[in-house]
């Protein structure tokens, strides 16, 4: 194909299931298109990168009571779990996961609290440098 690879940069700002799914679905679709994806988990999004965070993710607000039902539907439809989606993204080698350093300080999260899939802990400036070169930028 030649030429420089296309890039996508996504700010993952929410740790609820309804936002994490689209982020991972877009990332895995992008990797199938040979697009390199950079996911920056910040504020509430960062809770998803804590050990057990993806498994504990719920629907937002009052809808949280429907989380179990939603997970049942996801299983029935054969849609992968969030952890499986992340594993698939990492397996492709095209998806990079960043944890926001300021959020770590704010939420008192230590490096050892994070799942090993995290590639790097960075600040907003480092992510901006990546996003400036990206063909697609999203905030989810």
């Amino acid at each position, binding site marked *: 194909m030649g030429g420089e690879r296309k890039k996508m940069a996504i700010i993952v700002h929410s740790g609820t299931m309804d936002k994490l799914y689209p982020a991972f679905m877009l990332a*895995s679709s992008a990797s*199938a298109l040979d697009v390199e994806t950079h996911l920056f988990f910040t504020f509430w999004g960062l809770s998803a990168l804590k050990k057990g965070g993806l498994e504990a993710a719920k629907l937002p607000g009052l809808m949280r009571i429907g989380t179990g039902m939603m997970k049942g539907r996801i299983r029935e439809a054969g*849609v992968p779990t969030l952890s499986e989606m992340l594993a698939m993204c990492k397996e492709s080698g095209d998806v990079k996961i960043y944890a926001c350093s300021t959020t770590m300080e704010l939420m008192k999260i230590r490096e050892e609290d994070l799942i090993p899939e995290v590639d790097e802990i960075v600040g907003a400036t480092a992510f901006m440098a990546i996003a400036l070169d990206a063909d697609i930028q999203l905030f989810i």
Partner: protein
Amino acid sequence: MMKGMVDEYVVNRTLDARGLFCPMPIVKLKKAVKEMADGEVIKVLATDPGSKRDVEAWCRKTGNSLLEASEADGVFTYIIRKGG
């Protein structure tokens, strides 16, 4: 491309993506095609109606050739040749 103008082909590999939804059929297709040699042909079976546009877009963007696309009884069949 018009029917009948497509070259003869031999299917080297089959991917059964029936029952899977976006983005799984495409993720699996990418993985399978990566293991194939240029010019080899893969047959994909899918039930996700979104796969029609997805497969077409994937082939266009990745430089692979969609030789045939058809539907019968809710099952979509795609014949894809790796490369142009």
